[in-house]
């Protein structure tokens, strides 16, 4: 019987693999991974006490008690770590779903493409899904934003969720970290586009920016958070509590597009806990934990 040359090569390959197959189970047994548990972090967007919904009208927003109608709400979350009672921060390994999460980065999407959100997508995403070593976690910390080393790569070739063009910040060679668009009843646009500013060119002709003066990533930390029970609320009303949505600083972006000279950013950055134009960072007030939140806040 003659073996086909190709079959012979296959057989030889199988033989060559045999020693490796013999070794692998041993090494596997030698460093057995500790057991892991799936963990889902649930978010909900709210406007004060009401659930966020595209096209819905919300009254009493900001210092001028404006009525606003939102048309977009998405944000990037990264560096998610679970806190233990003894003070350790354990990274949450994010599921790679090819859509909402990649490496350590996740996109939350609170809009559903309806009404004034028509430039958005029908798909929503209000959870971050991953796993961590089995254990008891009492708190959580994460960052709102895209890590610097991933923020300034070639936009045309980024994997999801960094391929979402509505979150491109192309002129600044990066991504918007938070995008929250709305219009007041008086017809004024009011948006928050949070992202890095003051990005300085690299010496190399093709490299991305070497550094950004204002990273504008928000570090969030909740010392008491139970992923199985609690919800992280992103509150539009709290974010704009000290802003006057009827009076945009003349000749600046409508609302705040993170410009360091845009006075409309002052009150918003304060709520985000970010430093702004000489004002030091404080505690963030945009996100909060609602214990047992799923019971009281329905997602629309």
């Amino acid at each position: 019987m003659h073996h086909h040359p190709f079959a012979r090569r296959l057989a030889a390959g199988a033989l060559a693999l045999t020693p490796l197959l013999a070794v692998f189970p041993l090494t596997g047994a030698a460093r057995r991974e500790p057991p892991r548990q799936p963990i889902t972090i649930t978010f909900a967007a709210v406007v004060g006490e009401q659930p966020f919904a595209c096209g819905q009208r919300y009254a009493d927003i900001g210092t001028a008690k404006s009525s606003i109608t939102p048309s977009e709400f998405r944000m990037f979350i990264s560096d998610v770590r679970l806190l233990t009672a003894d003070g350790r921060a354990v990274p949450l390994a994010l599921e790679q779903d090819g859509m909402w999460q990649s490496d350590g980065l996740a996109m939350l999407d609170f809009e559903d493409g309806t009404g004034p959100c028509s430039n958005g997508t029908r798909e929503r995403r209000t959870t971050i899904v991953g796993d961590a070593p089995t254990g008891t976690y009492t708190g959580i910390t994460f960052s709102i934003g895209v890590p610097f080393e991933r923020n300034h790569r070639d936009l045309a070739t980024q994997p999801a969720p960094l391929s979402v063009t509505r979150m491109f910040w192309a002129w600044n060679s990066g991504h918007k970290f938070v995008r929250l668009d709305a219009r007041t009843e008086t017809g004024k646009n009011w948006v928050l586009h949070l992202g890095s500013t003051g990005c300085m060119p690299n010496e190399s002709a093709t490299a991305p920016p070497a550094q950004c003066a204002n990273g504008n990533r928000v570090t969030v930390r909740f010392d008491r958070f139970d992923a199985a029970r609690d919800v992280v609320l992103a509150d539009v009303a709290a974010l704009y509590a000290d802003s006057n949505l009827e009076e945009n600083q003349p000749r600046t972006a409508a609302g705040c597009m993170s410009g360091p000279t845009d006075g409309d950013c002052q009150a918003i950055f304060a709520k985000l806990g970010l430093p702004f134009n000489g004002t030091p960072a404080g505690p963030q007030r945009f996100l909060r934990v609602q214990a047992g939140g799923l019971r009281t806040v329905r997602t629309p």
Partner: protein
Amino acid sequence: MRPRTAVRGGIAAALALVIGFGLLGAATPRAEWRWELPPGFPVPRVPADNPMTAEKVTLGRHLFYDTRLSGNQTFACASCHIQSRAFADAKPRGVGSTGEVHPRGSMSLANVAYSPALTWVNPNMKSLEQQALVPMFGEEPVELGLAGKEQELYARLRADARYRAMFASAFGAEPEPITLQNITRAIASFQRTLISGRSPYDRAAHGDPSAMSVEAKRGEQLFFSERLECFHCHGGFNFTGTVDHAGRAFAEVEFHNTGLYNIGGRGGFPKENPGLMDFTQRPDDEGKMKAPTLRNVALTAPYMHDGSIPTLEGVIEHYAAGGRTISSGPHAGDGSRNPNKSEFINGFELTARERLDLVAFLHSLTDSSFLTDPRFSDPWLDTLPRRGARRPR
């Protein structure tokens, strides 16, 4: 059994031949791109991952002129970059597909292949591939208005057999060549071909002194004089200090404050155009912009980044005064005293004849062959249904 095996073997061999030829075809390097550069022009520097090919240039030209590249299908790149205007437009500031007005004017794309920093003022905008994403997906302001509509865009292109064929021939090795990256690579390749260097000034410099008028030649002397200092920022073969090309050790990128504003006496510029300060956040970078090429400048009125000077005569007046004075209104201020002003802008005096000479020189930089070169024109004009950009009125 044997004959049958032989037949099978024959088919396999034939298949192998076909596949082999297919692979050979894909692996054969395409004909080297020929630039056909004007005399004295260096070879542009092209990103290593996007070499020039005729197929990409053809595809890029179709995309550049195609209104399907806007969210509402009314606008193309060519709507603001019009060949008869040296690929700028006649508006003070750009107007996008939804009517939104850009804070700055459309720039000429002539010789954009030689610019290592793109747009009026963005030190991070280094490649045409990267820059194309701004008009496509930018929303502050909306230009082409494609943000969130990329799948719609791909579907429109996929639905057109001409595009399927053009993408396949430009990016044939890929199973699904209609991608964002390939769209920007093709548009960038077309833009790199927009080379302008056959003006009367060039013809005079390369053997035909009669190509330039006596007035223009006198204006040339003024332009390159230490008295006027124009050439410090608008020097070199492309009449700008921001330049790169193959064979250079490094790219040069310059930004200058020309004393166009001085709001409040502290160097202030209108808030929507802070200039380089937008990126560096250094107060002394306020109002610094890139010096654009002056090639075809007679066609790109109105002038300056915000179109605030209507004529070339007005521009000369601004520089002769060493900066513009605005006596009243929100922009009031003596630009000549702007603390961040370029050291080369100190004012000068010109006789009436000298002013005319200088204007004549600037007109001698108009390359009329560039404005009518059929390689750069709207390729959709001869086809039905017509997809091309609207003609300027």
